[in-house]
């Protein structure tokens, strides 16, 4: 993991998550803006997958358990996609909230991944 990239990912996921969660609670249906935010998070996660595959070959290996890291990363990558799919099927306000929750969960998982990669305790 590249720290600055990870921070960008966490910031984007948190922002997209808050945006969608708040607009959903305000009664907005899924829009290009909220779904676009989730799509951006998904793109960043795919980029992160590529980075995580390449980084060890450049001497940047995870300090923690690689298996744990990958379980987090793959799970995280499923979430925005699932949220977007849900929002496309059910175009109600609560779907917007769900997209927001998915992105916020990704932000938390990315933070955990960064911890596993950089400062692993135990």
């Amino acid at each position: 993991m590249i720290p600055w990239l990870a921070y960008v990912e966490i910031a984007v996921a948190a922002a997209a998550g808050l945006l969608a969660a708040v607009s959903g609670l305000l009664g907005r249906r899924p829009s290009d803006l909220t779904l676009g935010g989730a799509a951006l998070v998904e793109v960043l996660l795919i980029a992160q997958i590529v980075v995580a595959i390449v980084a060890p070959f450049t001497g940047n290996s995870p300090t923690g358990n690689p298996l744990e890291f990958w379980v987090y990363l793959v799970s995280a990558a499923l979430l925005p996609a699932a949220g977007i799919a849900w929002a496309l099927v059910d175009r109600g306000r609560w779907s917007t909230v769900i997209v927001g929750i998915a992105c916020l969960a990704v932000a938390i998982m990315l933070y955990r991944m960064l911890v596993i990669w950089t400062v692993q305790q135990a």
Partner: protein
Amino acid sequence: MTSTEQDPQPRSSRRVRGVGVVLIAVYGVLALAATGRSTVQIITGFDQAPIAYSLSALAAVVYILATIALIAPGAVWYRIALVTISFELLFVLVVGTLSVVDAELFPRNTVWSYYGIGYLFVPLVLPIFGLLWLRRQRRVAAAHIQGHTIAADTVSSPVPPTGV
């Protein structure tokens, strides 16, 4: 084929509505998280903390069951939802308390350790919302069955979310 003469089943079974969808989504995320955690824990070394790791696996199964039970219609699934969610509430309280009182008992964390602090206390709050919601749904269903001829006409369910 059996005739489907105006029985209240299709109405009362439509449990998935409104905020409930969010509840299910959060349960789904938690089920994913618990499954991921327990898979990693068991693969990397079950011997390190058999009790904690077994609990993690149990938590994963319970969250998956609860998620399915909330989605699936019918009285049987309603009961399964009730049982699994009550079970979660009980376990988050018991395991949470035990992990505070006697940390030795759980040398590795589970979803329920310290009342689910690793998951922003979602495991503590979620079953409470789940039970409240299930209770409300039962009232709605009961109201439908009692006067479903009237209810079907007057209090018809909100418009399905199609477009616009």
